[in-house]
C-alpha cells in the first residue's frame, strides 16, 4: 500500500513534529509512506473567500502532485475536507477534471479516520496511560468528514482520559481568514471554548489552525496549557507500547 502524506501548509510550518509523528505512526503500522515534494497549500483559504479561479489553480496543482498513490492521508480535517468534499464541488460540470477530483476524494482520508477505517486499527498501544487530555473536535473534521469517534477511540484505547468538555464540539473561532477579518468575534469564540475548558494537561485536536488560534489566545490571556496535534499523541500512544 503506497500512501502519500499531505502534510498541509500550516502543519508544515507550525507543527513540523506532527508531520514526523504521522510518518512514523503510519510506518509502524506497515504503511509505505511518501511525501511528494511538490505539495504546497490545498487552496482552501482562496476557496472559502470566494476566489474560486485561484482555488482551482491550487487544486489542479495538488491533484497532479498526489496522482498515482493508493491513498492520500492528511493530519488535518479541514484540508482533508477541502480535498474530499470541496474539490469535487470546485470542478462540478468540468467533465474530466471533475472525475479526477472525485477519484482523489475517494482515496483521501484524515489521519485518524485512515487508521481506524482503512487500516482497521483501533488500538495503537498503551502509551497514553495516565494522560488527561481535552479533545477539540474541529468543525470540518466533525461535520464534513464525520471524524468523531476515531480520534476519541484511538486516544482512549491507548489509556488516555478525555475530560468532559461542554464546548468540545463548538467552533473555536479560527475559520482561516475569518480569524483576521473579524478578529474580535474570532477570539470571543475562543474565549467561550477556553472559559469552559476543564483541567487537562494538554489540548488536542486534529487541525493545526484551531490549535494555533487557541494556543495564541491562551497565551494572550495567561495560564496557557500545551496544545498538541493529534498525530503526536497517536505516535506517543504507539511508540511507548
Amino acid at each position: 500500500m503506497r500512501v502519500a502524506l499531505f502534510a498541509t501548509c500550516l502543519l508544515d510550518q507550525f507543527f513540523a513534529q506532527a508531520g514526523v509523528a504521522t510518518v512514523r505512526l503510519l510506518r509502524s503500522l506497515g504503511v509505505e509512506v511518501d511525501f511528494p515534494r511538490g505539495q504546497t497549500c490545498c487552496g482552501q483559504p482562496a476557496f472559502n473567500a470566494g476566489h474560486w479561479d485561484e482555488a482551482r489553480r491550487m487544486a489542479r496543482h495538488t491533484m497532479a502532485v498526489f496522482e498515482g498513490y493508493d491513498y492520500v492521508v492528511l493530519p488535518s480535517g479541514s484540508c482533508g475536507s477541502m480535498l474530499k468534499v470541496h474539490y469535487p464541488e470546485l470542478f462540478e460540470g468540468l467533465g474530466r477534471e471533475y472525475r479526477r477530483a472525485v477519484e482523489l476524494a475517494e482515496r483521501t482520508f484524515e489521519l485518524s479516520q485512515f487508521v481506524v477505517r482503512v487500516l482497521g486499527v483501533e488500538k495503537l498501544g498503551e502509551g497514553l496511560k495516565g494522560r488527561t487530555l481535552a479533545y477539540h473536535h474541529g468543525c470540518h473534521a466533525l461535520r464534513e468528514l464525520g471524524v468523531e469517534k476515531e480520534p476519541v477511540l484511538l486516544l482512549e484505547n491507548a489509556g488516555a482520559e478525555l475530560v468532559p468538555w461542554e464546548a468540545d464540539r463548538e467552533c473555536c473561532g479560527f475559520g482561516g481568514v475569518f480569524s483576521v477579518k473579524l478578529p474580535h468575534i474570532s477570539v470571543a469564540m475562543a474565549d467561550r471554548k477556553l472559559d469552559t475548558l476543564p483541567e487537562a494537561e494538554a489540548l488536542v485536536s486534529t487541525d493545526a489552525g484551531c490549535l494555533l488560534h487557541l494556543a495564541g489566545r491562551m497565551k494572550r490571556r495567561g495560564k496557557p496549557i500545551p496544545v498538541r496535534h493529534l498525530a503526536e499523541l497517536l505516535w506517543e500512544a504507539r511508540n511507548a507500547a
Partner: protein
Amino acid sequence: MPPRAYPKESRALLAGRPEVRESVTKAALHFHRNRARAYAEVPVEDWRDFAAQVKAHVLSRLDRYLEEAEARLLEKGAVVHFAEGPEDAHRILGEIVKKEGVRLAVKAKSMLTEELGLNAFLASQGVEAWETDLGEFIIQLAEEPPSHIVGPAIHKSLEEIRALFAEHLGTPKDASPEDLAAAARRFLREKFLSAELGISGGNFLVAETGTLVLVENEGNIRLATSLPRVHVAFVGIEKLLPRLEDLAVFLPLLARAATGQPIGTFVSLIEGPKRPGEPDGPEVLHVVFVDHGRTAALADDEAHVVLRCIRCGACLNACPVYRQTGGHPYGFVYSGPIGKVLAPALLGPKDAYPLYHASTLCGACAEVCPVKIPIPKLLLTWRERAVREGLTYPFERPLVRAYAEAMVRPSAYRLASKAMRLFPGVLKSEALPLVRAWTRLRAGLEPSPRPFHELWEEIKDEG
C-alpha cells in the same frame, strides 16, 4: 445600520456591552440544548427529510399553490391582497386603517411586519400600535429591533427589563419576572379590549383549505386575532403548505426546532372571519401575501432554497458567531446564519455584503435546520458571486492572486518558508495589517524551527 457596518458594530458591541454576549449566549444555549433533547425524542431525520421535500415541492409550484390558497381564502370570506414590497403593504394597510377608522392596533409577533416596517408606518398614520408578544413588547419599549427570530429580547438582561418597565409601566425597581409579566399583561389587556385592528403574520398557510396557521406560547396572538373587529395577516408567499395534514409534521417540528417543545402552547387555525352565529372572531379578515424579493430569490437556481425557512431560529441558537453578539450588528431583520443567506437573496449580494463572510463555515447551523437548508454551501456560493462582482477588500484580489501564484510553484513556497524563518519579525510586525489582526488579540505566531518538508529529508529513509 446596514449590513456593511457589521464588522464595526459587532466589535463595538463586544467591547462596549459585554453583558449582551452573556445574555445571548445563555439564552441561545438554553434553546439549543432543549432543541437537541427534543429532536432526540422523535425520528427527527425522517421529519426533516419530509419537511424539506414538502417545502421544495411547494416552491417548485408556488404560482399554482398561491392561486389555490387565494381561491379557498375567498370562498371562506377573507379579503386577499398581494403586496410586492413595503410600499404596497403600507398602501393596503393604510386603506384598511382609513376605511375601518382604526385608532388603536394590537400586533402579534411577526418578523415579516418588521421587514415591512409596519410599526413606523402605523405611527405615521396616527395609529397607536402595540406589540403584544412579551419579548416584542420589551423591545418596543426599548425602541430596538428584534435580536432573535423567536426571542426578540434575548439580548436583554433582567435588570434592563426592570428599568424599562419601571420607567414605562411604573413597576417597582426590584419587581420579579412574574410581576413584570403581570404588569405587561394588565397593560396589554386594555389594548386588546379596545383595539379595532389586530395584525399578525402567519407561520403557515394551507393552500387546500385556506387555513392561516399561527403558533405561539403566550396566548396573545389568539387575543390579537379574535378580539379586534378587523384582522390583517401578512404572510410571506413562501409560507404555503399544500395540505392540512402536512401540519402533522410541521407543527411539532417547528416547536421542537425553536424551543424544544413538543408543540406550541397555542396553535390557531383560522379560516375566514366570524361566521353568522359564531361568538368570537373578527368581522373582517384580510390576508396580504407579501413578495418583497421572494420571487426574485425563487428564480435563483441555488439561492432559492432559503425560501424553505420556517423561522424557527434553531440556526441562530446553534451559531457560535451569533452567540457572541445577538442579532443587532447584522443590520438586517433576520440575523444569524439564516440572515446571512436571506440577506443576499432578498437584498442582493451588494447590500448584504459582508454578512456572508461573517462565518467560520463550522456547519453547526445546517446540522440543526429543520428544513435542511445547506447554509454553509450557500455562504460559499454568495462569496464566490461577490468576488465575481468585485465585492472584495482593498488589495484582496492581487493578494489572493500572488498567493495562488506562489502555491502552484513549490520552489516559491519553499522560498517563502525560508524567508519566514530568516525574518521572524515579520510574523510579529504590528506594521502589517493582517499580522496585526492576529497579534492584537493573540500571541504572535512561532513557526517550527524547521519546516516538516526539511525534516522529511532526514527521516525519509528511516526503517
